[in-house]
């Protein structure tokens, strides 16, 4: 039993539920006093810190008077979160009515002319908060995957060849620190000029935001991949040479597996950067995700606006945290298998 607990321990810690361990140990019959102390540290301290944060926030917020009223405290933000959920439900029922109306119209059209061509048109109402979250996730993953497709091969090349590395290194160093806000106008203009289609599959604003995410997020993957490949054990490479493996086999059987842990470290950093950049990109590109939500609420300037923006702040934070955990779990799994 205790060996089992020891084995799941790292995974629980990784998921942020390390406080389950002392409970499990107590259940398995370990001395309660030591485990309770452990539990207090693992669970009690974070919970207390969170409560303290909420209390300080509530106290300070009430004193900060803005032209949109006092800065909202935790209860106002919670109320607004519930409000957003209610709006989501209301919008969904409006959508159902929209489709019902359309069905009636289509039925009438068919009654009048059995050969009438009827189509179902997409709902025209506003995206709800939940829709906006999914738009943001879709955008960030598109940008992230595009970045990965560029950064990993380039990183492998740079890691294998000192010449390639010397060639791209200055460019990487110069482009890496550029803010999304600087890229965006250029990306917007290029996308408008290049992405011309009568019936586009994707919105331009979506492409613009995704490419901006790509440009800002590919660097950590590129650098870590190059580092991972460059630091592969020389013996392994020599084995490949002795066996006279051809080039693709060498890359896929030796180079990539050995460099995986660092590649994933890079990917995890990239996804973090991408998520952070996305919000700014969406604000300016008007891609209908969380960034646009924040921007629109700022523009609304109603007495609920600040509370709604704070709901978005926490949503962004929690999603960013979850994305990081997922990548960390994948990274740990990969590292584990690579070390085996």
């Amino acid at each position, binding site marked *: 039993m205790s060996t089992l607990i020891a084995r799941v321990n790292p995974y629980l810690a990784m998921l942020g539920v390390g406080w389950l361990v002392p409970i499990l140990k107590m259940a398995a019959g370990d001395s309660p006093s030591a485990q309770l102390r452990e539990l207090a540290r693992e669970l009690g301290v974070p919970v207390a810190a969170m409560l303290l944060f909420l209390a300080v926030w509530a106290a300070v917020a009430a004193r900060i008077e803005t*032209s949109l009223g006092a800065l909202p405290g935790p209860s106002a933000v919670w109320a607004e979160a519930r409000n957003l959920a209610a709006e989501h439900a209301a919008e969904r029922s409006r959508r159902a009515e929209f489709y019902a109306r359309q069905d009636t119209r*289509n039925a*009438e059209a068919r009654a009048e002319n059995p050969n009438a061509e009827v189509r179902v*048109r997409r709902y025209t109402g506003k995206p709800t908060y939940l829709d906006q979250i999914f738009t943001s996730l879709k955008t960030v993953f598109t940008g992230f995957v595009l970045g990965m497709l560029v950064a990993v091969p380039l990183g492998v090349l740079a890691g294998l060849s000192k010449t390639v590395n010397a060639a791209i290194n200055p460019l990487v160093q110069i482009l890496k620190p550029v803010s999304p806000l600087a890229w965006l106008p250029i990306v917007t203009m290029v996308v408008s000029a290049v992405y011309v289609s009568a019936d586009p599959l994707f919105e*331009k604003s979506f492409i613009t935001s995704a490419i901006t995410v790509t440009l800002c997020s590919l660097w950590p993957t590129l650098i870590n991949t190059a580092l991972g490949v460059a630091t592969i054990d020389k013996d392994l490479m020599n084995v490949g040479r002795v066996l006279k493996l051809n080039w693709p086999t060498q890359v896929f059987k030796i180079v990539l597996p050995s460099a995986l842990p660092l590649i994933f470290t890079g990917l995890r950093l990239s996804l973090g950067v991408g998520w952070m950049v996305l919000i700014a990109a969406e604000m300016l590109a*008007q891609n209908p995700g969380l960034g646009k939500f924040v921007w629109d609420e700022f*523009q609304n300037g*109603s007495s609920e606006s600040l509370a*709604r923006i704070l709901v978005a702040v926490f949503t962004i934070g929690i999603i960013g945290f979850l994305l990081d955990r997922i990548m960390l779990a994948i990274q740990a799994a990969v590292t584990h298998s690579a070390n085996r």
Partner: protein
Amino acid sequence: MRHVSPALAIAAVAAACGARAEPLELEQDELKFGFIKLTDMAPLAVAYELGFFEDEGLYVTLEPQANWKVLLDRVITGELDGAHMLAGQPLAATIGFGTAAQVVTAFSMDLNGNAITVSNDVWRALKPHVPVGADGKPLHPIGAEALKPVVESYRESGRPFNMAMVFPVSTHNYELRYWLAAGGIHPGYYSPTDSSGQIGADVLLSVTPPPQMPATLEAGTILGYSVGEPWNQQAVIKGIGVPVITDYEIWKNNPEKVFGVTAEWAEANPNTHLAVIKALIRAAMWLDERDNANRREAVAMLARSEYVGADAAVIANSMTGTFEYERGDERPVPDFNVFFRYFATYPYYSDAVWYLTQMRRWGQIPEGKPDDWYAATAKAVYRPDIYLKAARLLVDEGLASESDFPWTSDGYREPTNDFIDGLGYDGRKPNAYLESLAIGLKGDDTASSNTLVTAQ
């Protein structure tokens, strides 16, 4: 082949109304329109919410835009099919000031609806120069003469006097400039090499998107601004500024926003365009119906976060026929927002010409142009022919009456002198009008970075 069912839907509606019109064959029925968060986008929200678009078989998505430049660019690139635009935007785009493109309008969205607000400090300094009425309140309209000593005291102490408007070709820019110049304050010229519009200026004007106006004023970056509602009433209610004058008092029933589409789009989708204009006319009629009886309902609509999103109380302040100046000084301005009466939705050439004269006056049009150029440009951009076609369809369907529209107009309003300074304007004689304005370019004048070159 998308047109059959909506056409039948229209026929069904028309039949229900007791008249039967020829159904329009729509080229496109899924449309996306952009707007800026201002109360004068109301016709779009109303047409959507009350199902006027759907009655025409149109499935319209409305999307707020970050600022006027983004909005115009997205209409030009085709991301938006049409948008709520500043009256100056289609004109400026067509003559190539700013982004160049052929943009047309067949629907004027409203009259009036803007005001000029100054910060509390400036108001305190300005108030002693304002005559007081019998009731002890400041006498309105307040001319910029009262602001002049304040601007001078800023200059003497070496501080710039900054004010904001929403866009270089916005109605707000021209109204603010008109007001300042009428009071003897120079708002500055534009020139081909200097697009700041601050050549020779006593007051430095710059661009701020409407919803950010109150925050920018509060931050002290600007001392006043000219903007549409609800952003002036927002300043009153948040206690950060005082509106001094509404645009109704600067020019009674001045034309404001228009509904703009690219010429290319209008060409490719003539029936869809007609259907859109029909829905918008119905929305405008609803907004002004029975002496603004529906305005409360409209306010509730606009207060929703997907439209204007400001508090209903703020929006209601100006939408329901009153306007609050200083906190507590609420006065009736029944025509502050006009959506339909006085033929507000008809796109008059004379309105286009007035905007062109102001572009010339302040150097956005760098050289003098003959009178017929003004008329030709107005005709290329303003399309009363499309408007009247849509109106005719509505009358035939029994949804509007004959007397609602100026059928016989040649596109020019009667000459008027309803301006704060009482000067007369005749849209047929733009150059004579420019001559009559004390401050401003006229004839063949040009403005260059340091000096004003007056032609011989």
